[in-house]
């Protein structure tokens, strides 16, 4: 496999006049092309900080992140799915998905076609002309996934995207996410605090612990897909990750 992203000796310190927070220390991680990586850990362990650095929202204090062997630039193509509903309310589902293509000056007809294609991928082609407030929470996040992928980014960054949804919708979207990932072969980094979700989705689970935020262990998940979250091996893995997070 080809290494897509290489993270070396990454450190992040938030320095504010009031306090100094050591968010990440000595993070080393190689992510292969097409991998599905889950980042888990208690709050304050730095998993979201790492994601935000990859998204370019947060500056690196020390260390390097390279993509395809080159240092990360601000404007490389990444798709981000946020926990909150980040759709633009004044745009229909299709227009939301088109946004990234507009930025890249894709001609209108082409935009239209691609947007519908990605809406079909998340099974929302019938709701293309709906405004977000007329869609359910789950549907909105599906549009958000389509929007983050429509301009064919190099990686997809997801920050607890289904955290605000009810359990059933959440499971549905997890299955959909795996489906989308298998179809598009995108490299995905997925932050969650839900361990069952992590075991269900990831090829590897990166377990973070806080003070300072660092990687405790990287757990490989070799279970065949589609995964059964009640299978003994599944539960054993989930328990293993749970132990890693809590006892250190």
């Amino acid at each position, binding site marked *: 496999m080809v290494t897509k992203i290489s993270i070396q000796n990454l450190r992040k310190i938030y320095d504010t006049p009031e306090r100094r927070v050591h968010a990440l220390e000595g993070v080393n991680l190689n992510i292969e092309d097409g991998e599905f990586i889950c980042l888990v850990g208690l709050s304050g362990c730095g998993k979201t900080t790492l994601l935000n650095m990859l998204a370019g929202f947060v500056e690196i204090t020390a260390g390097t992140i390279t993509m395809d062997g080159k240092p990360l630039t601000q404007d490389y193509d990444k*798709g981000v799915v946020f926990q909150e509903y*980040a759709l633009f309310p004044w745009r229909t589902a299709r227009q939301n998905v088109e946004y990234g293509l507009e930025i890249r000056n894709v001609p209108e007809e082409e935009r239209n076609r691609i947007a519908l294609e990605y809406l079909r991928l998340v099974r929302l082609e019938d709701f293309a002309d709906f405004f977000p407030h007329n869609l359910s929470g789950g549907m909105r996040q599906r549009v958000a996934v389509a929007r983050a992928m429509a301009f064919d980014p190099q990686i997809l960054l997801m920050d607890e995207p289904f955290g605000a949804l009810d359990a059933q919708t959440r499971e549905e979207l997890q299955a959909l996410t795996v489906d989308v990932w298998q179809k598009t072969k995108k490299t995905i980094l997925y932050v969650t605090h839900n361990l069952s979700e992590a075991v269900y989705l990831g090829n590897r689970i990166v377990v973070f612990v806080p003070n300072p935020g660092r990687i405790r262990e990287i757990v490989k998940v070799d279970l065949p897909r589609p995964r059964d979250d009640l299978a003994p091996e599944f539960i054993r893995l989930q328990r293993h990750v749970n132990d890693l997070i809590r006892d250190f």
Partner: protein
Amino acid sequence: MQTSEAPPVPQSMDEKKKELRTSLLFKLRPIYPFIVILAIWQVAAMQARGNQGRLFPTVDAIVYRAWELVTDPLFRALAENPNLSFLDHIWKLLESPILLHTLNTAWRLPFSFFIAAVVGTIVGIMMGRFAFWESFFVPLLSVLLPIPAIAWTPIVVIWSGIGDQTVIVITAFASFLPIAMAVWTGVKTVNPVWIRAAQSMNADKMTIFRTVVLPGSLPMILSGMRIGLARAWRAGVGAEAFAGIRWGLSAGIFDAQEYLDIAFMMVALGILGLFGFVLEKVLFQPIESRTVIRWGMMEAMGAQDKKV
């Protein structure tokens, strides 16, 4: 799904009629309070005798006076020359004082409001975008905002004389202040997640401003415009009276005070009220229902649905 529609249920004619009747009565409900007030007025006015009756005219007398005010010049001209052309009819109608007053107010106010909306939006955006202009304008606006704009009238009259320009300056200034404040607040308080989303897709600053900040702050901007219009209305009507100009509804009202012409005042007041109502209906409601209401952004702001 909120959008699914129930299939139409077949109804008997009787039910349909009943529904129509109740819905018509329901729709007319906002008119009832006016009917009640007018009825009380009429009964009270009928008790007035002699000279009192002149000071407290009945509703029918006011309506008759309104008719007279509109048609008087026309009828007088017709008495002199019964063969007026159609165009002359119109011209004579426009000579009636109440219409002249109305037309004068009707162009000055929207004109002043338009100036205020343009300047207020530009200043508000500058404040929202550039820290320098923010620190420059915020103290200024904070001091100016609580001063009733009408209090500037004497100064403006001295500087720019008696005339339309004075009323326009006062009106535009009064409505500029809240509009600038609202646009500034709107631009500053756009949901940061929308901006992050746009940034994550590599939109540059100008694009983010055009495609995210502007539509995202539209609810605030519109509510600022609405407050601005209300302020323009008040200041404009006051300035008309205090600037000593000849034509304008409230100038007319103060004139009518000299002649104890209560009916004229009532008619002019009625037109003023109607004005505000029509501006709300033709200006704000269509814009809102096509934008922020359609996008579900009013609910997000916690605003109440506007009925009536």
